[in-house]
């Protein structure tokens, strides 16, 4: 039980103040309190449905779910102002949903559709919503830390009141960018809160096996960034903690590192055999389900009765149903659009072909009908997906039902299979 040992060791070294679980947090006013539950429910149902859609091969590539981490996500985002910026990792469906992005466009992005947040170019790991200042999911572990500091630098430079929250996992704390960014953020007094979502595994490697310092809240102290640990399963604790650190970022120009101790109930990605942890450990953490415990709190406070909860739950499911329907019905990106947005077109680059050097035919989008039509490219993509641990794609496809996906490859497989 490496996880428990880790948590105990770390707690022993911290003062009681930093142990969020030991503190009591006041509920916000009723509507606000219920909204927190609604957002967590939306994320939970969205993630569970995404898993289903992945198993039906509606979603390709990797799928990283945040089931179990809802309190950390919603607590953090609910402490932010509209003008604040948020950056996240590749486990970021919840972050953008909490920020208010339409679940339809998020699901459509997972489906690789034109109507997705990133027009089907980014996928599950690269959601984005400029309007809501959700500045992206990033696929490189630790890659978003410098970017977040740069965004905070822009706020500071322009004399704006906005702050940036940068969320990353425990694994990212071992990257060079972690130390480099902490140093620079402290040196330049940038308005940024670093939030390490400590779900206790860097993919399949336990925290105590990947980090010499397991009390992550202290890991940037020597670089001028003080930290605090908070119970990441307690939405109110996270909210209160992040609010205070955003205040410090804004008013004191003191970047800080919040460690939210949490747990992902599902595997690293959708195709994770989970050999690195025991079923008992997962069960123990599931007993601390952040949604169930918060809903109990709402019931005790008289904000919500059982029927009220069921209604919210049904609402969340309905939103996700609608998102799936929208994603299903949305068009795939047109092949002619392959080259769009490689560059910002303007004076220097007037069209993609001015950069393409006009190699005849082979690179033209309109001349690549084979892509996605069961040609070699399709086969390679499937081989790649299998290699990447996505499991048996053909099997997933066969199990898919009521498909509106009319790619010839699928049709051929159905006929032969």
């Amino acid at each position, binding site marked *: 039980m490496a996880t428990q040992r880790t948590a105990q060791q770390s707690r022993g070294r911290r003062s009681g103040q930093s142990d969020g679980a030991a503190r009591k947090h006041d509920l916000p006013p009723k509507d606000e309190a219920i909204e927190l539950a609604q957002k967590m429910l939306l994320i939970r149902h969205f993630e569970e449905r995404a898993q289903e859609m992945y198993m039906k091969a509606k979603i390709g590539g990797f799928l990283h779910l945040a089931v179990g981490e809802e309190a950390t996500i919603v607590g953090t985002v609910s402490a932010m102002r509209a003008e604040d910026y948020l950056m996240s990792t590749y486990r970021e469906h919840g972050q953008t949903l909490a920020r208010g992005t339409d679940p339809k466009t998020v699901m459509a992005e997972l489906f690789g559709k034109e109507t997705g947040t990133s027009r089907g170019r980014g996928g599950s790991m690269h959601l984005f919503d400029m309007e809501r200042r959700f500045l992206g999911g990033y696929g490189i572990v630790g890659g978003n830390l410098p*970017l977040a500091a740069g965004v905070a630098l822009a706020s500071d430079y322009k004399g704006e009141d906005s702050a940036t929250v940068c969320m990353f996992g425990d694994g990212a704390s071992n990257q060079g960018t972690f130390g480099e960014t902490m140093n620079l953020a402290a040196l330049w007094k940038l308005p940024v809160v670093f939030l390490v979502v400590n779900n206790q595994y860097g993919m399949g490697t336990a925290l105590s096996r990947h980090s010499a310092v397991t009390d992550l809240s202290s890991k940037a102290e020597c670089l001028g960034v003080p930290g605090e640990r908070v119970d990441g399963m307690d939405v109110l604790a996270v909210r209160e903690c992040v609010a205070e650190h955003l205040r410090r970022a804004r008013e004191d120009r003191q970047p800080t590192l919040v460690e939210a101790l949490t747990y992902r109930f599902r595997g690293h990605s959708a195709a994770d055999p989970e050999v690195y942890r025991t079923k008992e450990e997962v069960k123990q953490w599931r007993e601390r389900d952040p949604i169930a415990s918060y809903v109990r709190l709402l019931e005790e406070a008289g904000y919500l009765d059982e029927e009220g909860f069921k209604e919210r739950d049904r609402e969340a499911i309905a939103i996700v149903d609608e998102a799936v329907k929208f994603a299903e019905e949305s068009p795939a990106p047109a092949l002619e659009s392959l080259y769009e947005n490689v560059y910002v077109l303007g004076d220097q*680059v007037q069209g993609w072909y001015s950069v393409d050097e006009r190699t005849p035919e082979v690179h033209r989008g309109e001349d690549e009908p084979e892509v996605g039509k069961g040609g070699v490219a399709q086969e390679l993509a499937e081989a790649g997906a299998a290699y990447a641990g996505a499991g048996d794609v053909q099997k997933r496809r066969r199990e898919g039902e009521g498909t509106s996906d009319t790619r010839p490859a699928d049709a051929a497989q159905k006929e032969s299979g």
Partner: protein
Amino acid sequence: MAVMRYREALNQAMREEMRDDESVFLMGEDVGVFQGAFKVSEGMLEEFGEQRVRDTPISENTIVGMGVGAAMAGLRPIVEIMTVNFALLAMDQIINSAAHIHYMFGGQAKVPLVVRFPQGGGHQLGPTHSHTMEAIFLHVPGLLVAVPSTPADAKGLLKAAIRDDNPVIYIEHESLYGMRGDVPDNGGPMRFGEAAIRREGTDVTIVGISRMAITAERAAETLASREDIEAEVIDPRTLRPLDLDTILESVRKTNRCVVVEEGWPHGGVGANIAALVQEQAFDDLDAPVQRVTGADVPMPYSKALEQAAIPHEEHVVKAALATFRDI
């Protein structure tokens, strides 16, 4: 018209753009108090102050990443990296972030960032400070790549790079910083993707990249005086976008082509241009395209070895003559 050094032209470009646009700022290692490792930012801290001329710690990947983040949030950062070899530490942010963000987020964000650094051998700085790597950056869609070889181009292209909304890899040459040349007064930004014809000629086209454009010009003079061959010398100035039209037009006239670069031969700029020329103008060629490149070795320290690893005028003359061999 004013005569100034290449480094002064760069300095002037940055100052003018910073005076015109509050969102432009410079950051990098030793760009402020030290005034730049190659004195490119001399006097800029004094003029613009610490908010806009920022000394950074030695953290290349994070400096570039912060430039990307600041650009996404509306600023126009210029990031100076001390040499191309140090830029390798920032390849994650240059490729995974700067080059990809506009595309991977469906066009929602843009990255108007300039990353400047020098490259090139000749100063006995050995295998970690002297390489020529424009081909690595040229490889990446989403980046623009400039390789100016004169003070006038240095200024005009840097102004254009700063104003452009795409991430620009702006590659200077260590041996050119002290070079003097005419720079137009009140010159505006130049257009990317417009090659310069440095010397007109009818017999062979020589394309020179960065400092090799100057070497090519010297070789052309030698070819004229010694061999009675009139070479046309083309300096593409930017590699992305590349002004292939000017190169092709020249090749269609001369029917011969030589590409000269200081970088390594495999997967190099010359390899790329040779491929494009044969694809587009195969029937116009009277001889195979010749390449002159740096030696396929890490750059050695010893002076004689270093010089042996860099292309010289004689190599270019030889390559040009090879295109006249009977086939």
